[in-house]
């Protein structure tokens, strides 16, 4: 079983409250916020490790981004992936989800073939959840997003997914794309030995020119059908009045405020 896991390096979501907007240039100031592997993608790596334990095979992590993303790929290798590829080129930067999914699908084609392509269901920063379904569309593969379980039976993937009113079970021909929900598993801890071992695992960086058959009109800003207008901070318009006193007194004051809203 050859498994690819798509990962994204994102600014640490615990620090999003520190993001500010430059009032003049209208650009984001996110200086000092460290980059981490997107949380959902860690669950995708864990899902890959469990599939490998069950069915054997290898795990390749792929990503697109600037050169420092090598660090998150190393971390993925320490988690237990076997090798890693990074597509890093100014030409692929500034991409929306369609252009990103195109470039990543080409990286997957170049380094594959794979039986299963895994990803996290959503990223902490953009959180569109578009990329997995769009990778599948570019590659003409079947796809399930927000997967809660994955197993392989008779050469097909059996995947469950929660809907508003129940749980669906799907059978997907291989290869296929599966984006995992964070509830699919608990991510195992890595140890120092694994971190040291990861330093010796193969990590290859490709430029756009290294990717066979990459249509440059489909990547980067130029290949993106959506464009960004202005940015705004989501600021609350509320003004908070503090209710002072002991917990009992505060509770009484809360009841006073909400009484008109309570149904008899």
């Amino acid at each position, binding site marked *: 079983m050859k498994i690819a896991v798509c990962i994204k390096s994102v600014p640490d*979501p615990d620090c*999003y*409250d520190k993001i500010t907007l430059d009032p003049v240039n209208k650009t984001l100031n996110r200086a000092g916020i460290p980059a981490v592997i997107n949380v959902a993608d860690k669950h995708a790596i864990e899902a890959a490790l469990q599939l490998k334990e069950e069915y054997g095979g290898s795990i390749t992590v792929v990503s697109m981004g600037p050169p420092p993303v090598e660090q998150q790929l190393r971390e993925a290798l320490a988690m237990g992936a076997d090798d890693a590829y990074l597509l890093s080129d100014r030409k692929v930067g500034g991409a*929306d989800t*369609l252009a990103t999914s195109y470039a990543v699908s080409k990286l997957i084609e170049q380094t594959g073939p794979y039986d299963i392509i895994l990803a996290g269901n*959503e990223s*902490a*920063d*953009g*959180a*569109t*959840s*578009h*990329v997995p*379904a*769009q990778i*599948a*569309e*570019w590659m003409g*593969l*079947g*796809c399930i*997003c*927000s997967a809660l379980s994955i197993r392989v039976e008779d050469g097909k993937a*059996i995947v469950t997914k929660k*809907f*508003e*009113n*129940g*749980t*669906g*079970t*799907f*059978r997907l021909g291989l290869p296929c794309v599966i984006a995992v929900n964070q509830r699919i598993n608990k991510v195992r801890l890595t140890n120092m030995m694994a971190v040291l071992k990861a330093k010796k695992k193969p990590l290859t960086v490709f430029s756009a020119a290294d990717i066979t058959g990459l249509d440059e009109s489909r990547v980067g800003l130029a290949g*993106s*059908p*959506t*464009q*960004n*207008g*202005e*940015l*705004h901070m*989501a600021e*609350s318009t509320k*003004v*908070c*009045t*503090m*209710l002072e006193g002991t*917990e*009992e007194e*505060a*509770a*009484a*004051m*809360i009841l006073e405020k*909400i009484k008109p*809203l*309570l149904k008899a």
Partner: protein
Amino acid sequence: MNRDIWVFAENFGGRPAPVYGELVRKANEMREKMQEARVCGVVLGKDVDGLAAAASVQGVDTVYVMDHPKLDTLDACVLKEAFAALIRAYNPEVVLVGATALGAELAPGIAGKLKTGLAAHCVDIEVTEKRINCMVPAFGGRVISEIYVPATRPVMASVRPGIFDAPEPAGAGAPVTAGNPSTQVVRADSSFLDSVTSPVEMIAFEQDAPSADLRLEDADIVVCAGRGVSTQEDFENVKALAGKLNAAFGCTRSFVDLGFVPDESRMIGTSGKSVKPQLFLGFGISGAAHHTCGMNKSKLVITVNRDEKARMFANSDYGVVGDAGKVVSALLKQL
């Protein structure tokens, strides 16, 4: 190219998903600024005449239907073929899809197929003279980015349920009791699907057991537990308080991660539900953007946090600096 605005009427047990009415209402607001625009519903499925009639709500001019045995599924891979074929045949300018479990997977598939732009999880859509601006939250809702689609069509946007207002009783999006004679139903040719094979097959669907608990999206009052509600007893007390107030119980992420609640249906925020109740009572919530973007349209917000600097207070009308568990048990006693 025409200026039609399409809204996906996802099949929720023979009726359109509730987000359909919310989007039809929004589409009707958009149409006022788009000359000659029509608002149209889109119905996919097998034997869906009833659904098409139910989608013929106030403010919908036409319902486009693709009816085929293969569409009796939650497999987005085959549904996107049908949806994309409809778009190619009738060229709408805008396509709105509710970001339900299915819609969130279907919309990017369609946009990928048509190589057009899709704005995710919009919190508003503005029609200006020059363009259609989709307001898209990023960084957990900390930042709102204007997204537009300059060259390709249709402009696609997904919207999470509960973000836009529900229809007024007789307004756009509201059901019409005796069928809507002014809505035209157009049944498109679906025979091409005979030869379409999807790589995905839905092999089972297990319906959730019916629950008597009030759902977050239906509640006038929401009582929400954050991680500051840290003991089992306090957690149960928050739920009991919700029960006493006829409120829906909600929570932040950690309760889902730790398995205290079974899934995201009780979680409020970017990855869970968006609520806008008359009253939001929050206990021990720090106020991370990922959470507040799911509740910041609530009318009256009262929160308790032991940290006077908690960001949650900036999203509150009234705040109490104190122990969440103690305030909850005092409330239970005094009620």
